[in-house]
């Protein structure tokens, strides 16, 4: 192992990350909500697209 690698491993173990959040903080609920909102906006875009297509046919 190079000195660089050892140093970076030593330094990185101190870095604060949201470790517990994903395990027991019901974080998956938030991810589900974000996914639903994203999906919802994209679905709306599809509906708008359809409406424009309808207007174009007239």
């Amino acid at each position, binding site marked *: 192992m190079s000195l660089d690698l050892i140093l970076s491993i030593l330094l990185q173990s101190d870095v604060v990350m949201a470790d517990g959040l994903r395990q027991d903080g019901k974080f998956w609920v938030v*991810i589900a909500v974000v996914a639903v909102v994203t999906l919802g906006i994209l679905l709306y875009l599809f509906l708008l697209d359809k409406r424009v297509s309808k207007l174009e046919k007239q």
Partner: protein
Amino acid sequence: MTLKNTWWKILGAILLVYVSIMGLAGEVPRQPILNETIRNVYFHVPMWFSMMTLMTISVWRSIQYLRTGDIIRDQQAIAFASTAFYLGILGFITGAIWGKFTWGSALPADPKLIAVEVGLLIYAAYFILRGSFEDEQKKARLSAVYNIFAFAAFMPLVWILPRVTDSLHPGNGGNPAFGKYDMDNQMRMVFYPAVIGWVLVGIWVASLKARIIKLEYNKLNQ
């Protein structure tokens, strides 16, 4: 809408839903100062990639307009440029939020930021220029020429200038963008889909805008 010409819209949508989940749930490298904000790479950076793509399509449409005189090309050029501008504003705001918590300042005097500010102002002048003409053909022709100049000024400003000097952004000041120390393979599995997804959805929104502009134009000229 047939499947033949909507598959890329569906692909873009699926990619963005995937990114919204994996961007939050996926593993990221532990980096000091950055901490969890490294995830912003999935959400902030694709804004710029999508913007650049739309600007390239816009300038291509302007060239096509100048060559053919087809007004639909001009309508597409303005639709793509304005959508690109909007994505640029979103990129700017998200960057300011990110910078506030990592660089310590929302708007540091960074060469890349200044370049983008100037670049977006050049594009703002494009929209003002279009608004100042009564004659449809003259407006289309002059703004097409200006769009080419705006594009030719924007790209070196944002890509080359910050690399010549030093910038807080990774990949500037001589380093290759997103080197091996910034992003691991697991991050790339989310970052690349994010870029492709936002490019596709950006094109989708811009083309939708172009179709609405065309409808409005046809209604006015009935």
